[in-house]
């Protein structure tokens, strides 16, 4: 016939790897977007795991953070019959049905970095809890601001679910813990650094009493710091953000950024790879004892929610940011 979907054994042989060797195990990861340091660092971590644990690590991302382009790649991995498929979905809802298809094809499916909660994913490898990130951002900024004052948030994609979730935590946490502080505006600059810088400048102008800025993603975190530096207001206006260490280093050193909240991204990639092996071999996700990686020391698995948490977020400062090469 014109289809081979009825031929037995055509699709991947997921059963073939039962507990045995990981030699011909393939674990694929589809990031939201290729070429940005964040996901490339995850890729590095995943590759490291692949070398140490002995499996094949595949990584392929779309050139724009676009759900449709991402879906094409996921489909090609389904076709390739990988054993485990990790996705960091651009749009969690849209990924759910595709993950179901993948599972039907005998592939272990999981999410990392961003969850697709209403899907069939077996595990979500979480970098840090939503609360942990939101609170760390708020605490770090308000420490610099002296516990009070006006601040604004420069976010990125308007529809990015995780950013919006963190912002919600920041709003609630600021209101409850820092009554003298106030979020005066939230703006969206897309993934465009220059736009983020310009918007931060506009915010400083329109709110003369503004003393804090948050860059909510890896492109706006350096952007807001740059704006403060350009305006010559380092030391008057404080910024924090979710920036990768290398891109934040100059600003952390100059003081225009008071801290970058992130996590060990390579470790997240490593953890993803490791989780993939566990899924394929029916291993115990809660048992990290065999892992020889101190960055994963605080990782823990919550059986009930299926979330594998890397640990609390890391605050990068001028002192430690140089230790990371991404």
């Amino acid at each position, binding site marked *: 016939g*014109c289809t081979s*979907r009825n031929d037995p054994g055509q699709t991947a042989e997921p059963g073939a790897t039962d507990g045995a060797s990981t030699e011909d195990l393939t674990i694929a990861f589809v990031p939201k977007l290729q070429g940005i340091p964040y996901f490339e660092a995850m890729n590095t971590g995943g590759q490291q795991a692949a070398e140490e644990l002995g499996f094949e690590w595949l990584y392929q991302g779309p050139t724009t953070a676009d759900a449709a382009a991402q879906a094409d790649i996921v489909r090609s991995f389904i076709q390739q019959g990988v054993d485990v498929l990790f996705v960091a979905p651009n749009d969690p809802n849209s990924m759910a049905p595709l993950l179901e298809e993948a599972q039907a094809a005998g592939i272990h499916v999981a999410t990392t970095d961003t969850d697709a909660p209403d899907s069939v994913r077996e595990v979500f490898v979480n970098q840090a809890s939503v609360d942990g990130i939101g609170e760390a951002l708020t605490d770090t900024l308000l420490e610099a601001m002296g516990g009070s004052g006006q601040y604004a948030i420069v976010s990125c994609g*308007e*529809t990015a679910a995780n950013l919006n979730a963190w912002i919600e935590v920041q709003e609630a946490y600021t209101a409850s813990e820092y009554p003298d502080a106030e979020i005066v505006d939230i703006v969206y600059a897309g993934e465009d650094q220059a736009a983020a810088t310009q918007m931060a400048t506009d915010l400083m102008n329109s709110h003369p009493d503004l003393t804090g800025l948050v860059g909510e993603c890896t492109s706006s975190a350096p952007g807001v710091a740059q704006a403060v530096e350009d305006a010559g207001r380092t030391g008057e206006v404080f910024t924090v953000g979710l920036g990768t260490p290398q891109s934040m280093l100059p600003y952390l050193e100059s003081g225009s950024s008071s801290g970058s909240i992130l996590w060990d991204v390579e470790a997240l990639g490593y953890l993803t790879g490791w989780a993939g092996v566990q899924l394929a071999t029916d291993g115990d996700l809660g048992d990290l004892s065999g892992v020889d990686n101190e960055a994963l020391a605080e990782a823990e698995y919550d059986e009930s929610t299926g979330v594998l948490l890397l640990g609390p977020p890391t605050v990068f400062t001028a002192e430690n940011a140089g230790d990371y090469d991404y």
Partner: protein
Amino acid sequence: MTATTTITPPEQRRGQAARARDWFASGGLKDRATLLLGLIVLLLVVMGILDGVGLTSGQFNSDYLASTLIAYVPLALLALAELFVITSGRGGIDLSVGSMVSLTGIVFAMLYQQAGLPLAIAVVLAVLFGALLGAINGFLTAYLGYPALITTLATFYAYRSIALVVSEQRPISGPEISQFYNAAKAVELPVIGGTLPLVPLGVFTFLLPVAIVAWFVLNRTSYGRKLYAIGTNDTAAQWAGIDTRRTRMMAYVTAGAIAGLVGVYTVAQFASARPDAGTSGSGMALPAITIAVLGGVAITGGIGRLSGILLAALLIVWLNASILLVVPGNEGAQAQLLALGLVLLGASLLSNATIRRRQRGLSKPLSVPGTAAGSTR
């Protein structure tokens, strides 16, 4: 020799040779379809060989080709929308289709998920809403005389902005919408389906009906004739007694309605309504225009066929899918850009060269300053 030989009535029965000559004389259209078909076959053959010698990372088979059709549907539909608009001539183009997709998708989700309307009514209203957005484009372009590029650049910004504002930049989803994925997902065809790959339902529920209707509209209705007429020579169309403004406006309304349908489709395809569904990344408009042009739609108007659109979209979707199987890693997704650029440039340069050789100097409309035909585009 006498003077009576000047008039020879057209022969009733013409030979193969004459038919062949006609076939060529009718321009590069059929050629484009043949060219695209040839490229598709070439792609399949090459991929088949690569698969045979084991250079692909996954099996290149009909199941995979069928599964990628889920992405084919919106691409082909929007390129079809561009066909209507570009063919209407006078610089017709629609940069706003992506924004219309976003906005109608949101409106559909609001009607279906949040207001709880029955599916059919919600779909109809969403399509009508898309038509309304298209009517704004059409009115500005056809009746007020704005160049289409400008109208739709403005509404591209405006509709996109409205979609984000009304949805408070959050995707809309919920149980109804998740269920609605069934309208797009792959199914087994009845009766003979067992021997065929699973084909995404959207091909039958969305693309096929629209394509059939569009074919009839373009080829078998007086509206189609009028559309080609205004696209070929607007002034002459006016003299021939065609209501050129209404005809042109309807092209934009059609594009809007199709974009509305794609809005509904993307909600199904992604099981959520995203306010940036048609505008994220480089957006849906530019690929749609690119596919239309690749499919042989003349940017100057008056020329364009459905077959070209369907084949061009298919070529691109399968080419992209093939690349992912051949080129691993980030380079794969990047190579898609390269391939699209090369195919587009190659096809248009090639067919332009052949058309030019064949009908060099085919008398252009006389440029009469101060009239519409005077504009060189």
